[in-house]
């Protein structure tokens, strides 16, 4: 008895599966691997669903693969096993690696041209385009979520310490003085920072118009050599170590590990990515403001633009040409002013296109949310030159690790800033030579 019922059940399931697979075959699935977790991931999935609903031929399948490092590694491993996705979101640090993988990637400018989708590099912000184009100005990956570091500060604490709550300190000497006042008012530490290499060395160098590496920060050739041990950088790191002793600066770890120090009110000033805005807003119980990164006035009068972080969308080879039409259409959709504006306002990432920036301005978004336009203003001030266009260094994920290892050694008092940065440069150059050798 069980026998015949069981057989009927199996037959039913099998026929249902046939129907399902038959309908699925009509739609081309496009695999999209990304590193947006939490609310950001939900928003991204929402975009994909809306695109899927707007047409019947293609279905974008977004898959969260972990953080940026994990996503990139997964895509590379998948490529080696010939199981790669169509689209993968790679952070800015992986740009050189992706660019050198000439057989693996399908450059976006070429994709859009082949598929006859409109694509105008001039529609994007100069700082963003510069980072992701090759030497001929062709954009290789689709800019999607770009950020730049800013200063978050505790307005309540500023009031208590007798400082102007509408203005974050513009220069480092002013920040030092402010920190001392804050400590006198009872706050254990003046400021803390996330992403030490990105903010305190890479962006620091861009702001002060000094090079990070030779060959235009690596844009002009693989035979680049790191130059982060220049006099000003050494001086700045040494100053951070000096401030660590009196807790004017208190180190809280890499990435955004130092966030709790700001949220809890321990440190009144916090330097981190503009994309941390949502997390800061959700975690603090005081009024906070956003300001631009400080600079040393004796080294430069008008600081240059900051450089971007975040990620772009890369397209991988290996699929039939018809699939890439769907990718191109999805990219057009993602770059539309409405979607970009919505993404920017939700996430704290920058509006990538000038149209999206305009739209947000028209909607009065920046008036209603003070401080959300600071990162864009900082990114677009002045004209980017070779020192502030960004950087393109191979093995840069490992190099950042090396640099942050050495910075931590200085902050813990184990090495002088000069010795540490010299070591960082030496170790990093070995990694750069290794990259050059395998990608000649």
């Amino acid at each position, binding site marked *: 008895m069980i026998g015949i019922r069981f057989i009927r059940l199996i037959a039913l399931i099998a026929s249902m599966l046939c129907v399902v697979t038959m309908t699925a075959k009509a739609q081309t699935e496009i695999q999209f691997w990304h590193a947006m977790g939490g609310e950001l991931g939900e928003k991204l999935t929402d975009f994909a669903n809306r695109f899927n609903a707007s047409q019947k031929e293609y279905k974008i399948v977004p898959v969260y693969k972990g953080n940026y490092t994990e996503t990139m590694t997964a895509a590379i491993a998948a490529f080696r096993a010939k199981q790669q996705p169509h689209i993968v979101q790679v952070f800015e640090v992986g740009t050189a690696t992706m660019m050198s993988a000439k057989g693996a990637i399908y450059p976006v400018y070429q994709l859009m041209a082949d598929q006859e989708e409109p694509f105008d590099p001039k529609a994007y912000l100069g700082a963003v385009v510069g980072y992701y184009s090759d030497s001929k100005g062709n954009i290789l990956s689709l800019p999607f979520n770009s950020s730049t570091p800013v200063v978050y500060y505790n307005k309540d604490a500023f009031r208590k310490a007798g400082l102007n709550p509408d203005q974050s300190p513009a220069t480092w000497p002013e920040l030092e003085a402010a920190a001392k006042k804050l400590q006198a008012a009872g706050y254990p530490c003046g400021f803390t920072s996330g992403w030490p290499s990105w903010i305190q060395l890479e962006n620091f160098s861009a702001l002060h118009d000094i090079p990070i590496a030779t060959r235009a920060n690596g844009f002009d050739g693989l035979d680049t050599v790191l130059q982060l041990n220049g006099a000003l950088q050494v001086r700045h790191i040494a100053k951070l170590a000096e401030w660590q002793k009196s807790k004017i600066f*208190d180190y809280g770890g890499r990435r955004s590990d130092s966030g709790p120090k700001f949220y809890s009110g321990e440190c009144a000033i916090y330097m981190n990515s503009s994309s941390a805005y949502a997390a800061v807003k959700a975690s603090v119980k005081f009024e906070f403001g956003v300001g631009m990164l400080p600079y040393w006035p004796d080294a430069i009068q008008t600081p240059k633009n900051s450089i971007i972080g975040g990620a772009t969308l890369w397209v991988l080879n290996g699929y039939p040409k018809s699939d890439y039409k769907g990718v191109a259409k999805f990219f057009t959709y993602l770059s539309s002013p409405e979607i970009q504006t919505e993404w920017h306002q939700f996430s704290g990432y920058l509006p990538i296109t000038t149209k999206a920036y305009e739209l947000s301005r028209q909607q009065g978004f920046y008036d209603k949310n003070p401080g959300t336009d600071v990162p864009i203003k900082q990114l677009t001030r002045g004209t980017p030159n070779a020192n502030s266009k960004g950087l393109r260094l191979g*093995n840069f994920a490992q190099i950042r690790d090396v640099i942050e290892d050495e910075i931590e050694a200085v902050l813990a008092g184990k090495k002088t800033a000069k010795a540490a940065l010299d070591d960082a440069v030496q170790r990093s150059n070995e990694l750069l030579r290794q990259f050059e050798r395998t990608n000649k």
Partner: protein
Amino acid sequence: MSEKRVTFSKSGIAWLLVAPQLIITLLFFIWPASQALYQSLWQEDAFGINREFVGFDNFLKLFADPSYQHSFVVTIVFSAAVAGISMGFALLLACKTDKLMRGNQTYKTFLLWPYAIAPAVAGALWWFMFNPTIGLLAYAARGLGYDWNHFLNGEDALILVIIASAWKQISYNFLFFLAGLQSIPKSLIEAAAIDGASSNKRFWTIIFPLLSPTTFFLIVVNCVYAFFDTFAVIHSTTRGGPSQATQTLIYKVYKDGVEGNDWSGAGAQSVVLMIIVCLLTIIQFRFIERRVHY
């Protein structure tokens, strides 16, 4: 002791019976190991598009690298501390529990729980307790005058991962020590007591030497644990930092391979680690087999 041996008239059936185990060993051990060996002889980019045969160059580069030598030192210090602390505490707890008349079972149950916790969870627990901003233990340390910050001080970070790893392993060692203690004939201890030996002397001259097979076995197991299974603890707390203070050999493999996409370097490191495990296994089989008596 009489040995039972099972024999098969036809070897076919024997092969069939061991086939599942053989397949698993081949798929999950031999294949990846040979792949790592193969990869360690090449230098290639992340995607595997450009590759160059370099022979033993990767190994030579590895041993000349001060970071790698530093990882060796960190691993040795870390393993010694984890093994020492967890075995020391486990022995103490086992001795005390052994002597109890009542509540014996309750203590055993509670002392077993840390072993059931996933390493990543254990790491996260201790990370929270020691977090300089919100951690209870960090707060207590500051009360005693010590400014705990494992994001800044390498020593604090190392202490954190040692405590988190050792804590988890105490249960395992405790079980073995307890079993070992209970297999010591009570008559020996009673005889010593009658002869006037103090409790201290009884422990060090009779109990501890008779526990040596267990101790030796546990040393090897704890070393393997500290070398490999502590990856999750380190990854969920300090991630090898600050400034490589908690970067054990296994963590360096992950850092270079998965995060840095340097498959050749990571392959070479994996091969070295494999050789170390082989050595540990040989030591365990040769020495323990000889010293265990039934």
